[in-house]
């Protein structure tokens, strides 16, 4: 559905996109992740044909992206990070305005607007102007304006920034519903847990480059990081820590909340080996958990930077 | 001093706008300083346009005669009368005189000799009729007496007027200096009002936004210190603008300052600045909406300027406007330097009025400000 191939975008000396490639298929939710200034928005703007780019190819719905390609534009929706709504128009009018940019038939539009209002649960506020809405409700309106025309491809740029927990859950649930209806969603966010929950695949960007992509699992497996297992053992043996360090592939053993935190080199048999060790010594354990790498760890591993830099 | 510095920094952001304001003011002031009056009594010259279709000795003599005391422009035949009439409509020209080609025949047959177009409602028209009639009366009288008339000699005779004496107590040069400078200060007063209301209004509206004020309110800064710093910063900007305009005016007219009550003018400018800041204080206590601030600023400044006789002399206005003017501070601002030799005692009343206005606006501002604090 989207194919971006080796796209290069320069702002004078600054390279915003550096041979950036990525693709998405129908019905996928792709998380575009990376710290501020890594080129996420530039990539989206290039896909939307708002920006020129210096090199590379972009295809959407199998067609080359071009400012005059209205057939493609008509199937795309955008939910920008900042609110793009008219302060002087009420909820209904705002959605109708934006929907009207795509749908000319009055009856069809009316139905779509009503559906969008229900979708974001703003029916009670349809006559309210944005000034009278809370931050979360404004965000919902912003989303409704972007999705009312039922796009096949939706770009959502940090739609849950500065939103209360209730509204956030509501929004995330809505996104899942859209996916179920077959909408492809390109989703950028800073909230990693949100991305982990929601996205089918993730593209990690840094300095305009696509540095890794795949499902969370694939990403976790693709990088050579350590595995940590936390175990709470009931024993008086003072040498237990030294014994644990003797296990194969153990890098080090530290203490956390009275438990042992064992750092392994990444290996298939780390957990079975540990269990074998416990059983062989008849030890009793109160807690045993394996910690997998988080997106933050992955990002740190890949770039040496924190994701929220 | 942090608030003080921050406000001055905000003003610095508007430096180009301030520059445009001051440049525009001096362009106007310089333009008007070009046509200032002379040193002694001068007859009122009429601005006349003559279309001479006769081109006879008499008509040429007539033009010479008119030119002796008036500004006369001889137009060619193809000149459109419409354009000349428009000059009368606009008050640029006092009258148009058309001399027909059969001037001689008309004079001989006792028909009216020339056609004049002017605004018949004014004294200027009377003067125009007077001088035109005189020439032809003399031509006719000369012809009746000796059958012929020497136009050149007659013009020499007609050019020799009586001497008009200006009373010794009147210093015309000083009077002209005063007229120009008081117009300059009038205009400066209007400009300062507009300037301060717009610039200070916009700067302070940024400063008075609820979020910012709340942050200041929760800081350990005392309200009194805050007010003092805010007022000082605004006063410094006001003083800067006053000095710029006042000394700019002095520089512009450095040789022609005799008979100008400069001290009173300076005080007047300072007072109108204080008054404007007080108005702004009231507006600021009412709203932080820039649209309202700019709208009110514009309307208050232009409204007061019109009704106080700064744009158009008060005596030319309607009675309603004249009586309203008495109640406006900008009118009293002009009265502080109403006469070249006005004494401090005479200025005192107007000074007092402007000061009282300033104080009352400050009190209103404080009341509104307190209400706002309680409400928030």
């Amino acid at each position, binding site marked *: 559905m989207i194919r971006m191939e080796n796209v290069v975008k320069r702002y004078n000396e600054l390279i915003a996109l550096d041979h950036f490639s990525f693709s998405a298929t129908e019905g996928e939710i792709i998380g575009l992740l990376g710290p501020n200034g890594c080129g996420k928005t530039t990539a989206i703007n290039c896909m939307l044909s708002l920006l020129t780019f210096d090199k590379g190819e972009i295809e959407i719905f199998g067609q080359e992206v071009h400012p005059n390609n209205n057939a493609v534009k008509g199937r795309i929706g955008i939910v920008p990070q900042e609110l*793009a709504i008219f302060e002087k128009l009420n909820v209904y009018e705002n959605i109708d305005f934006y929907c009207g940019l795509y749908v000319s038939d009055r009856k069809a539009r009316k139905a779509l607007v009503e559906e969008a209002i229900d979708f974001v649960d703003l029916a009670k506020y349809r006559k309210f102007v944005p000034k009278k809405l809370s931050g979360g409700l404004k965000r919902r309106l912003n989303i409704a304006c972007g999705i009312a025309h039922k796009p096949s491809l939706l770009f959502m740029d940090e739609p849950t920034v500065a939103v209360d927990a209730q509204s956030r859950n509501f929004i995330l649930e809505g996104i899942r519903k859209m996916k179920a209806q077959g909408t492809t969603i390109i989703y950028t966010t800073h909230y990693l847990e949100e991305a982990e929950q929601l996205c089918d695949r993730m593209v990690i960007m840094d300095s305009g480059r696509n540095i890794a992509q795949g499902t969370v699992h694939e990403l976790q497996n693709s990088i050579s990081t350590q595995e940590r297992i936390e175990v709470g053992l009931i024993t008086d043996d003072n040498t237990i820590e030294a014994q644990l360090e003797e296990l194969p592939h153990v890098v080090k053993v530290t203490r956390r909340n009275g438990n042992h935190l064992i750092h392994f080199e990444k290996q298939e048999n780390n957990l079975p080996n540990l269990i074998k060790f416990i059983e062989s010594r008849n030890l009793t354990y109160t807690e045993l958990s394996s910690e997998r790498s988080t997106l933050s760890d992955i990002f740190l591993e890949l770039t040496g930077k924190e994701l929220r830099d | 001093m942090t608030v003080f510095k921050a406000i001055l920094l905000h003003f610095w952001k508007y430096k180009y706008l301030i520059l445009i304001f001051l440049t525009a003011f001096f362009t106007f002031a310089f333009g008007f300083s070009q046509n200032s009056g002379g040193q002694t009594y001068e007859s*009122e010259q009429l601005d006349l346009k003559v279309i001479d279709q006769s081109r006879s000795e008499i008509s040429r003599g007539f033009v010479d005669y008119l030119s002796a005391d008036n500004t006369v422009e001889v137009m060619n035949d193809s000149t459109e009368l419409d354009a000349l009439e428009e000059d009368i409509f606009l008050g640029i020209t006092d009258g148009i005189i058309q001399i027909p080609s059969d001037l001689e025949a008309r004079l001989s047959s006792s028909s009216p000799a020339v056609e004049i177009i002017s605004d018949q409602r004014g004294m200027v028209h009377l003067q125009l009729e007077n001088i035109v009639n005189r020439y*032809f009366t003399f031509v006719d009288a000369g012809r009746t*007496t000796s059958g012929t008339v020497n136009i050149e000699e007659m013009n020499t005779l007609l050019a020799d007027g009586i*001497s008009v004496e200006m009373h010794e107590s009147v210093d015309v040069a000083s009077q002209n200096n005063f007229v120009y400078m008081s117009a300059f200060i009038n205009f400066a007063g209007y400009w300062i009002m507009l300037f301060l209301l717009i610039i200070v209004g916009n700067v302070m509206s940024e400063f008075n936004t609820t979020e910012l004020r709340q942050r200041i309110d929760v800081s350990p800064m005392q309200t009194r210190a805050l007010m003092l710093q805010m007022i000082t910063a605004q006063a410094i900007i006001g003083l800067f603008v006053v000095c710029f305009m006042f000394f700019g005016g002095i520089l512009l007219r450095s040789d022609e300052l005799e008979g100008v009550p400069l001290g009173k003018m300076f005080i007047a400018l300072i007072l109108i600045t204080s008054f404007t800041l007080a108005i702004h204080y009231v507006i600021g206590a009412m709203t932080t909406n820039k649209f309202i601030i700019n709208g009110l600023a514009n309307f208050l400044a232009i409204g007061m300027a019109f009704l106080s006789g700064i744009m158009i002399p008060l005596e030319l206005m309607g009675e309603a406007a004249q009586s309203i003017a008495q109640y406006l501070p900008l009118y009293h601002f002009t009265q502080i330097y109403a006469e070249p030799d006005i004494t401090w005692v005479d200025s005192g009343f107007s000074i007092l009025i402007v000061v009282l206005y300033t104080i009352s606006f400050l009190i209103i501002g404080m009341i509104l400000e307190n209400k706002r604090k309680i409400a928030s």
Partner: protein
Amino acid sequence: MMILRMIKYLIIINFKDFGYWFWTLCYPLLLCGLFTMSTPNMSSTEIEDIDVGIEPGHPVAEVFESMDFIALAELSESEAVERMKDGDMAGYIHGENELLVTETGVNQTIIESILDEIKHVSASGIPYQNFDYDREYIIPNSQDAQPETILFYALISMISIYGMFSAIEFISTMQPNLSLMGARFSASPFSKWKFLFSSVASSLLLNIFSNTVVLIAIAILYQMAIFTELWPTLLLIFTANLTGIGIGLFIGLIPGINANIKTVIAVILMIALSSLAGLIGPIIKAVISENMPWLNTVNPLARLTDTMYRINFLGNYNDYWTTIGILALYALLFFGVTFFVLRRKQYDSI
């Protein structure tokens, strides 16, 4: 239909804006009220008697007394000076037909002129009876001077170009490099030209609406008959509306500054153009006509102001079509530039 809907929303957005109501309706009406209050006496300087003082028993008293526009009073010099300083007397005749004054003015010049004539008659050697003072040498025609009407026409000119504010707003909104909404428009299949057309149409409708209200108010509320030629004047105002919108689009295209600063630029431009067209008083108009007549030709507001009073007050249609042409030319020029600049669909940076 999409265009009509767009026009409807653009009008609603402006209509709900305080700025629109204040600047296009309240402000001109308030100014108009101000003008009406401050100008009624401006040009009705009726001929009043000139107060002249004369030395008791002076020989020319008889001549002055015979003139119906002179109010003669016999009094001493010191009394006369006092009255002159109070502005109650124009001049004092004494000695050898000498005139004493304390100020310069038309009234003093008229007295001077009469005294001149007395001197000339006696110096000419022509017998007094040969002077025929009853003969009419003049065919008088009147052209009223009404410079104050310039204020009203300049005001109407100013409001005719107010459409530029909404044009700035709209054009800034539609450019993706200037606004978020612009990015949304550009990414939608709604064409730029339809949006431009809708912007122009809604600016025009809004401004024509407010113009109509102001004109009706001037005619009814202030009882002013300044439109004797209604339809030709309306055509002028309509054309000027297009010029104003064109200027607004042009200003809106300036890159690198936000819509607020553009509005400030427009305000300064509008104040400058309308002041030069006569909004701050007729004197400025006279100064420009005298020294820089070209400025009146290039300033669209001066063109409009001049042509409006020419057709309505002077019945002069000479430059009517030229003015319409110049205003339309300005509009075309600015629309052309806008068209050219907006052809670009993509931006190097947003």
